[in-house]
């Protein structure tokens, strides 16, 4: 007969407010096999845990059920407590009577009855539980950082400086990300490149960092401490070893009119190109889509002029496999294009640009060398309108969220414009000014008060072109809803920050969750902001939600610390939730018939067929064998096995059956 302890938590009023906890404990005491049943205000507190520990010791319990919050919250807490009282931690189960009961149902008999049922289900499960021991797995002390923007750079440097190897993968030909495109940064107006480029160089030179640019992660297998990443090194048609970065090829390339991605399509580049003068690595890549040779089979001018013979036409993509122990995802964001905005001309007006394009205009290294000039005719705009919340906080556009950075960069843009065009007039249409942050609101006030930027609280209904001017029709809600019409020379839309184009695809490759806007989901919105729900994979930066630079850097360092903490151990303890094939001694008695169905359906290739031999070396039976290091405990094989020869520890057939039967207890 089992000796099970049931411990019902009130969680203050959270459970106790709707569930009669005392009654649940009393009723649970009547379940056969329950030795002790009690309730307490806060089971997770120190005195609460002591109640459990004492009961285990005094009554010699062989199983514990804690009726409290979700196992996602405190399963590990209570299992640790059991462990301290010398009870195998896997003999402890949680009945979720808070998230699944008290918080979702009204106070009443039915709710209390449900709580009791949930307890009963776990009591019956515990009766079938077996003591398990954690699995020890080695840790590969090498991290994979995906994305080479400021988040990836910071995370890579922090991990590398902690003494661990890092592989940094960037899909573009250079690292730097969006931050490299920015002109100045708020709230200090220091030059973005001046603070970023030293970091980029540091990455390239760090002995612990292996940098793969123009590369993408193709797939990730394995688990915390033991991932295997497949990385596609896209053929850049230039041998980085031989190339000296002299630039002969880019000056001679006949295709000179390709819109430059680095300049947010505002400037032009050649088909063989280096994204920017500060690129790392500062060596060119051939853009196959625009290269004359790749299009027509003729040209190869770059090959002729290259003094070191570094051009390698027709080299195939290379796929490499790297073993890593942890992954930090830092793939950043994108800005919504102006073409999304029908009311502002579907991207047809050249002088309606995005905030990112304005950054390039304002940047000293940009297409206009830092002068604000209209893309249409190159003149200096004398009147400029900034539209905040273009596509953000707009349910009609499918994005009810705030893009967070726009209020600040719009203030910065208006300020930069006023500093560069002294006789210019600037207007900002806004909904609210969200300037929470150190020195942020002061910065916005400076734009308004010192630099004379006209802030108009209201939305812009339409922008249209007329006689070379952009007519901006909006409303000033602070002036009693008066309609405002401004004849502007240029309009800058603070378009929404959106998830990167490939975000969904990458999330599926990495098996991490993402929200409906394709931003990656953190494990807990407050307490686990840099973790994902997949152990060993961490997040940093704007791939999670729009973030400014300080927040991004903080998150990246946070993720790096998590990685370093993981790498501080030589072995990891893993939950013993793994599949096992029944193998009574002698092993020939296994019910496994060797059909090998499970081998094919295992997503982790953890199952192989093993030949059992007699003393003479003759094969007498072939049975499935599971590698507990590779098994992730999904249990697909259990449901698939025709002869019920595989079971999943912690979620065994008996445990689940008992649990379901208990739920239907009369």
């Amino acid at each position: 007969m089992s000796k099970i302890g049931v411990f019902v938590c009130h969680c203050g009023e959270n459970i106790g407010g709707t569930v009669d906890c005392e009654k649940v404990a009393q009723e649970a005491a009547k379940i056969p096999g329950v030795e002790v049943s009690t309730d307490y205000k806060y089971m997770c507190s120190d005195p609460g845990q002591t109640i459990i520990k004492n009961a285990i010791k005094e009554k010699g319990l062989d199983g514990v059920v804690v009726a409290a919050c979700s196992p996602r919250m405190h399963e590990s807490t209570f299992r640790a407590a059991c462990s301290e009282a010398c009870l195998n931690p896997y003999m402890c189960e949680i009945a979720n009577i808070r998230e699944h009961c008290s918080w979702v149902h009204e106070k009443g008999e039915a709710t209390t009855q449900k709580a009791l049922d949930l307890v009963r289900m776990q009591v019956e499960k515990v009766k079938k539980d077996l003591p398990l021991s954690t699995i020890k797995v080695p840790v590969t002390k090498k991290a994979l950082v995906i994305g080479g923007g400021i988040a990836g750079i910071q995370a890579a440097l922090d991990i590398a400086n902690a003494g661990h190897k890092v592989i940094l993968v960037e899909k573009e030909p250079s690292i730097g990300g969006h931050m490299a495109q920015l002109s100045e940064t708020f709230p200090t107006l220091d030059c973005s490149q001046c603070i970023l480029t030293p970091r980029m160089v540091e990455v390239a030179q760090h002995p612990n960092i292996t940098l793969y640019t123009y590369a993408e992660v193709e797939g990730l297998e394995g688990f915390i401490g033991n991932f295997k990443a497949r990385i596609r090194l896209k053929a850049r048609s230039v041998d980085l070893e031989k190339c000296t970065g002299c630039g002969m090829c880019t000056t001679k390339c006949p295709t000179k009119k390709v819109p430059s991605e680095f300049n947010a399509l505002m400037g032009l580049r050649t088909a063989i190109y280096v994204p920017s003068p500060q690129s790392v690595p500062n060596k060119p890549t051939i853009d196959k889509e625009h290269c004359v040779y790749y299009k027509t089979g003729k040209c190869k001018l770059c090959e002729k002029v290259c003094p070191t013979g570094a051009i390698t036409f027709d080299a195939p993509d290379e796929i490499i496999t790297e073993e890593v122990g942890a992954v930090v995802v830092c793939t950043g964001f994108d800005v919504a294009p102006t073409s999304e905005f029908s009311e502002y001309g579907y991207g047809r007006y050249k002088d309606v640009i995005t905030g990112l394009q304005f950054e390039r205009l304002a940047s000293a290294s940009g297409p206009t060398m830092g002068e604000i000039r209209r893309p249409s005719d190159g003149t200096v705009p004398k009147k400029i309108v900034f539209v905040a919340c273009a596509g953000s906080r707009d349910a009609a556009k499918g994005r009810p969220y705030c893009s967070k950075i726009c209020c600040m960069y719009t203030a910065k843009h208006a300020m930069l414009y006023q500093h560069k065009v002294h006789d210019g007039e600037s207007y900002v249409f806004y909904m609210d000014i969200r300037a929470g942050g150190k020195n942020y609101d002061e910065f916005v006030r400076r734009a308004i008060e010192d630099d004379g930027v006209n802030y108009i609280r209201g939305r812009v209904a339409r922008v249209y072109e007329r006689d070379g001017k952009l007519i901006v029709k909006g409303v000033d809600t602070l002036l009693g809803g008066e309609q405002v019409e401004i004849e502007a020379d240029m309009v800058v839309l603070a378009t929404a920050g959106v998830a990167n184009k490939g975000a969904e695809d990458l999330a599926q490759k990495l098996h991490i969750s993402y929200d409906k806007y394709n931003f990656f989901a953190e494990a807990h919105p407050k307490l686990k902001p840099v973790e994902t729900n997949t152990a060993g994979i961490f997040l940093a930066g704007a791939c999670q939600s729009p973030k400014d630079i300080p927040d991004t850097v903080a998150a990246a360092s946070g993720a790096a610390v998590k990685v370093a903490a993981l790498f501080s151990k030589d072995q990891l303890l893993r939950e013993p939730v793994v599949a096992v094939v029944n193998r009574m001694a002698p092993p020939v008695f296994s019910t496994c018939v060797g059909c090998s169905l499970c081998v094919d359906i295992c997503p982790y290739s953890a199952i192989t067929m093993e030949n059992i031999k007699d003393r003479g070396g003759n094969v007498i039976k072939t049975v499935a064998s599971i590698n507990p290091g590779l098994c992730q405990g999904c249990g697909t094989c259990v449901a698939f096995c025709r002869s019920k020869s595989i079971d999943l520890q912690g979620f065994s057939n008996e445990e689940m059956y008992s649990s379901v039967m208990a739920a239907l207890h009369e």
Partner: protein
Amino acid sequence: MEKVGLYPGCSLKGSSREYGESVVALARVLGLPLEEIKDWNCCGASSAHAVSKELSLALPARVLSLAAAQGYKELLVPCAACFSRLKTTQHTLMGDDERRKKIEDIIGAEVGGVKILSVMEWLEKYAIDAIKEKMNHPIKARVACYYGCLLVRPSGVIKGDRVEDPQSLDNLVKLAGATPIDWAFKTECCGGGMSIAATETVGKLSAAVMEDATHRGAKAIVVACPMCHSNLDMRRPYINKNMEKATDVPVLYITQLLGMACGLTAEEVSVGRHFVNYKEEEICQK
């Protein structure tokens, strides 16, 4: 070709007779089978929904019900206001079973599922080839296609793909040889039903539309809405006062323009009924 039902509504029988006549004339010359549905009633226009929600749904529901009962699969609704009311009613009732049952109870018949077509949808679906074939008097002028509000809004009901910059009229006038101008007031309000109650306001709003169209060199304004037509045409003195200059740019229905391009005479499409004279030599190359 299956017959399409025609719901003219009151405008096409009254103040905008020329629209109704030109729709019928165009259908005839293009060989499109069209038949006025029997026993139709007012759609409720701009007044019913200001008085009673139920009435504003029941009136159009009866029209839809008649069309379905008389065996039509598709119903052409040339008047933009009728089109809007009928579409809105269908949209509301299809998404709300309870309300549909109630309205069906009031009108004593099932609403049915007739497909509502605007003039543009009708022409796009059935007339493209016929226009290309019959076109013998290409229109060479630059014209401004003016949609107003009722043909494109609310976007959730009408479900056009370019709400702020619709293209259907533009594409049709291109077929007739005309050049549609790119302008900014395609979907702005003309003042609509305020024509009598607040004529000054209508004059101001319509003047803004007219001003942008003429400024960009339009020789005619092409519409598919009796309300837009009457405001831009009949309220021209108010418009001129607001623009501080006299404009004589005519306002034509799309059916009149296409009809003339396909060889109908000015009389056959009733352009003579307009307040602002239509000048054949400027628009049509005969």
